[in-house]
């Protein structure tokens, strides 16, 4: 799960991490109230920055970040921004509707650094990463100048130790009061990462910057958060930050039915039990020259309701030209699954060819039921046969793709 920038800054404040003055606004009036708070703290000449709140980067270039010097300007910019569809390189061509803005004081940036906390899977422990190359794409820094990235593995029983923060600050060239401020920031961000069950906190840039009063410190100018969905049950306050407006409506619909769905841009809809088999099914479709429209794991014990919801979801994607159901019935028997498929296929009008591949317990009975159902189901034996048939049904030639 992701959160908005204003929510991230609220979390920072909760963990004693200093951020710019200001806050979220959903109307021009609220934006002016934020402006008044900022000028009350920093004087009437303080400038404010107004940032569109969407879950995507690249807002600046798309007109989602603007400055204002007066109450009227603040209201005007906010009025213009809210309700507008912002298209950035991360939103896709359909863009995202701006529903709120963040109004803050303006920091004068002197240096841009990078700091992140994430899980190191090889160590099975959290790791903190810092770099002097702030504001850049860290993947590119890692590829081109790996020596500019420093890393510390954290012992979860101890938490991040102050000496580790000091080591990183030294590597970043921070000294004196800035080193103290930088270390304090890092330790607090680690604590936030651990206590809120984050899977990633990335501060880019972490800036050496002056506030409007000229006080120089180290601040998190922009931050990206990811939370461990499996741990949200113990953080109701964070779970409440979820913004369904920022999520693919198909994903929202799928999660309502306990389905694991990820929309892609191909034309063959897939329904599979088990995540590994679902990925393998997408791969074999590609291998036979087709293109999967989605990843969909209906789980080990898919019910008729779930299969019906899954068919509805797949058929709502207008790119889909054919469907493939690939089920390995283990404890869940194929005849039960076939009954579910038949019931669901009767309940949902399926406008495209449907290929079904069943394997496992009671497979013969399941296949017989599909054949006798009177539904125009194409049955397949084995994954290769299924992939070939569905690719042909979708209009491809089903010939292995050569690279």
């Amino acid at each position, binding site marked *: 799960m992701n959160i908005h920038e204003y929510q991230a800054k609220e979390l920072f404040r909760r963990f004693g991490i200093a951020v710019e003055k200001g806050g979220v606004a959903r109307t021009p009036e609220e934006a002016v109230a934020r402006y008044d708070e900022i000028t009350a703290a920093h004087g009437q000449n303080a400038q404010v920055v107004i940032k569109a709140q969407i879950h995507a980067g690249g807002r600046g270039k798309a007109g989602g970040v603007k400055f204002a010097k007066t109450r009227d300007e603040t209201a005007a910019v906010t009025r213009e921004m809210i309700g507008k569809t912002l298209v950035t390189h991360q939103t896709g061509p359909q863009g995202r509707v701006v529903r709120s803005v963040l109004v803050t004081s303006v920091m004068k940036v002197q240096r841009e650094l990078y700091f992140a906390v994430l*899980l190191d*899977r*090889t160590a*099975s*422990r*959290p790791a903190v990463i810092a770099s002097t190359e702030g504001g850049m794409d*860290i*993947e590119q820094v*890692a*590829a081109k100048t790996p020596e500019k990235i420093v890393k510390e593995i954290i*012992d*979860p*029983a101890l938490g991040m130790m102050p000496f580790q923060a000091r080591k990183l600050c030294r590597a970043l060239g921070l000294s004196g009061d800035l080193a103290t401020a930088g270390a304090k920031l890092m330790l607090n961000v680690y604590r936030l990462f*651990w206590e809120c*069950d984050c*899977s990633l906190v990335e501060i880019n840039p972490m800036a050496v910057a002056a506030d409007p009063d000229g006080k120089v410190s180290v601040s998190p100018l922009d931050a990206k958060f990811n939370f*461990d*969905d*499996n*741990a949200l*049950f*113990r953080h109701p306050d964070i779970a409440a930050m979820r913004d369904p407006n920022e999520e693919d409506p198909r994903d929202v619909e799928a999660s309502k039915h306990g389905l*694991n769905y*990820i929309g*892609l841009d191909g034309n063959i809809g897939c329904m*599979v*039990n*088990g*995540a*590994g*088999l*679902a*990925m*393998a*099914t*997408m*791969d*074999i*479709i*590609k*291998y036979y020259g087709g293109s*999967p429209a989605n*990843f969909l*794991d209906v789980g*080990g014990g898919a019910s008729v309701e779930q299969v019906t919801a899954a068919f509805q979801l797949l058929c709502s994607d207008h790119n889909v030209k054919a469907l493939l159901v690939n089920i*390995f019935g*283990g*404890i869940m028997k194929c005849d039960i699954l076939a009954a579910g498929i038949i019931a669901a296929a009767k309940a949902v009008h399926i406008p495209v060819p449907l290929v079904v591949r069943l*394997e*496992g*317990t009671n497979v013969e009975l399941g296949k017989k039921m599909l054949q006798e159902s009177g539904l125009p189901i194409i049955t397949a034996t*084995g*994954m*290769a046969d299924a*992939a070939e048939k569905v690719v042909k049904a979708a209009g491809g030639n089903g010939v292995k793709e*050569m*690279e």
Partner: protein
Amino acid sequence: MSILVDQNTRVIFQGITGSAGKFHATHCHKYAGNVVGGVTPGRAGEVDLDGVKLPVFDTCAEAVKQTGANASCIFVPAAFAADAILEAADAGIALIVCITEGIPVNDMVKVKRALAGRDDTRLIGPNCPGVITPGQCKIGIMPGYIHKPGRVGVISRSGTLTYEAVWQLTTRGVGQSTCIGIGGDPVNGTSHLEAVKLFNDDPATDAIVLIGEIGGSAEEEAAAWIGEYCRKPVVAYIAGMTAPPGRRMGHAGAVISGGKGTAAAKIEALRAAGIAVAETPAVIGETLISLLKKRQRTRPRKASAPRAKQGKISKKPAQKKPAKRK
């Protein structure tokens, strides 16, 4: 022979009174009769597994004392699973198989930290189908009948994809020594590499099937070791060639992040180590069979000698390199 579990394994189920725990304890017991009891805090007494009455204890320690259990299968809800794993370890249980899905990552980080350096206990999973030695012991949710006793070891991060591979082997007459589902989470107990080492040392295993997927670098770590030290032929398959970066593909651990953990990188590492990589999930069984045939042809005599002592089945690069090309 086999690894991890055999006919002498004595299994308790933690969470045996829950619906999933009871259902699968019943199936495991029917398969080979190794279930000796269960644990559900506050529910000590008895459980009826389809006519077989087994004792239920409040704690693992009590269960071990009364039943002599040396393995545990965990079915407790995700929020309590980390505690259950550590309780089993504390009770001295040698093999802990955690089926539970959806355990918070930080809980598993703590569990790994707590188990670090302990060689008297091994964790398999979480979020896995379990472990089976065909005909001898089944601990988990896999359908027993698709397996067949034999000499191929199977390691996998997923459930149904493993069944698919196992079924391809069984229907072609190739049996399995042991099949291990190591689980689909980013932090798990036993890694691909540790499982490969166990099979490499197992005299009853002749070949290894390694099934991986996108995310992390466990397959690459296993590949590097196999290339240097593994004495047995290995066939691999990696799922997720078409997975988009940044999205979790069902399993919490199946995600390409920061350009790392792609299927292409894993396949490249596996091939570089001389491992035969199946091009599609439909040919995992065939790839293994043709590799075994090829090795039999190129091995001069005593083709069936399975008791491979170190260096006896030497690795000749020429016969190891898969001729397959995309």
